[in-house]
């Protein structure tokens, strides 16, 4: 039962989260057949054209606009704001994990850490000590990076300030 629940949750997690998301092109953008710059161009999205976002891969987004579909550079797309409410998008995995019940959902307008909490906060050294207890050293981090999928070091300069 627990394994089944975990599998269910995992499946929900890995499902394309962007299925319902919509956005628009910030400029005229070439639509590619595959997520590569040298892939075949199948059409052009005009600036401000609305798209449905289907998936993302690396720096590319799979989009659909009417009969046109294909891949565009993800940073050519901006999302329409306010389309997903806080509750609908939130995968309440933590809730599921804690209660073993999927009946509990997080409601919209949930009051999280807000200005008032910060204004009224008293330093909590005991909680800070707890945080220190979970810290890991360099060798632990390096072992983690060697696991699957392996994370490989790259030498890359910071990006220049755009003009």
């Amino acid at each position, binding site marked *: 039962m627990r394994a089944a629940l975990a599998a269910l949750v*995992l499946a929900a997690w890995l499902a394309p989260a962007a299925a319902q998301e919509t956005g628009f092109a*910030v400029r005229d953008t070439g639509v590619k057949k595959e997520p590569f710059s040298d892939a075949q161009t199948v059409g052009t999205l005009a600036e401000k054209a609305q798209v449905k976002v289907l998936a993302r891969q690396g*720096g590319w987004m799979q989009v659909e606009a009417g009969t046109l579909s294909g891949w565009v550079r993800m940073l050519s797309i901006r999302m329409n704001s306010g389309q997903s409410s806080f509750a609908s998008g939130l995968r309440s995995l933590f809730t599921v994990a804690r209660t073993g019940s999927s009946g509990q959902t997080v409601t919209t307008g949930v009051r999280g850490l807000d200005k008032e909490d910060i204004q009224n906060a008293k330093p909590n050294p005991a909680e800070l000590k707890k945080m220190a207890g979970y*810290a890991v050293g360099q060798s632990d*981090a390096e072992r983690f990076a060697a696991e699957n999928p392996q994370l490989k070091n790259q030498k890359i300069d910071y990006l220049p300030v755009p003009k």
Partner: protein
Amino acid sequence: MTRILAAVVLVALGAFPGSAPAQFNLNLNRLIDTGKNLRDAFKDVDEKQEAEIGAEYAAVLVGASPLLDNPGVARYVNRVGRWLSLHSERPGLNWQFGVLDTETVNAFSTPGGYVLISKGLLARLKNEAELAGVLSHEIAHVVKKHHLAALRKSKGMEAGSNLLSMYLEQGGQRSAAAKERLVGGMKEVMLRGLDKDDEFEADRMGVVIAARSGYDPFGLPSVVQMLQGLNPKDSALALMFETHPDPGSRLDALDRAMGTRLDKFASQPQAAERYASAIQAK
């Protein structure tokens, strides 16, 4: 002049009734002496002082929201974060990562290497590359000491940096009043946010730190895109939206800065499955 400063100090102390016993330990002469370098209070903060300030800052954050009671998730976030920190210019700091048990969508860092991400944000991320993007953005703030710059500019500190100097100079002897004042400045920065240009810089550095660490660098832009799709009026997002440039201008800036420069690293792992199973760990 002396009298005016003393009056200011007394007023300041009056504002913090909780610190009553310390009032009598204040060395007014010393306070007035150090008051000369009001604006320079943070100029020469060394690494140890930076860590002390950061610990105090982080203690306020975990005082505002407790940590998520889940050692598995805490450990996982620390492994990812510590690995990323090794690819920054300050790998030797005492880096510590934590998850705040709140539905709010936000992440924070404090001087000296403290990084906190909310459970609400963690639950909205799709993979480890996105987590790496968020943590790298925060690591960049620490590396560039953006919080200290913001503290220097905060109103509370301008008026009270003489107290701040005392806080820094007296070590274990520091007064509770100075500490209260510093905490006030920190809260001001948390509520107002960092300098907007510093946020853009942290975005630019964040994508590179993630790529250096072997992740798909588009994790951070993907998170900012996700944020753009949310309803900014939601109370759980209010603080994050108020303290950061709007997602649209962050994406515009990332677009211009990244161009095609990091494309060849885009096929590096996103680690979606590891993320999904780690986040469910007990």
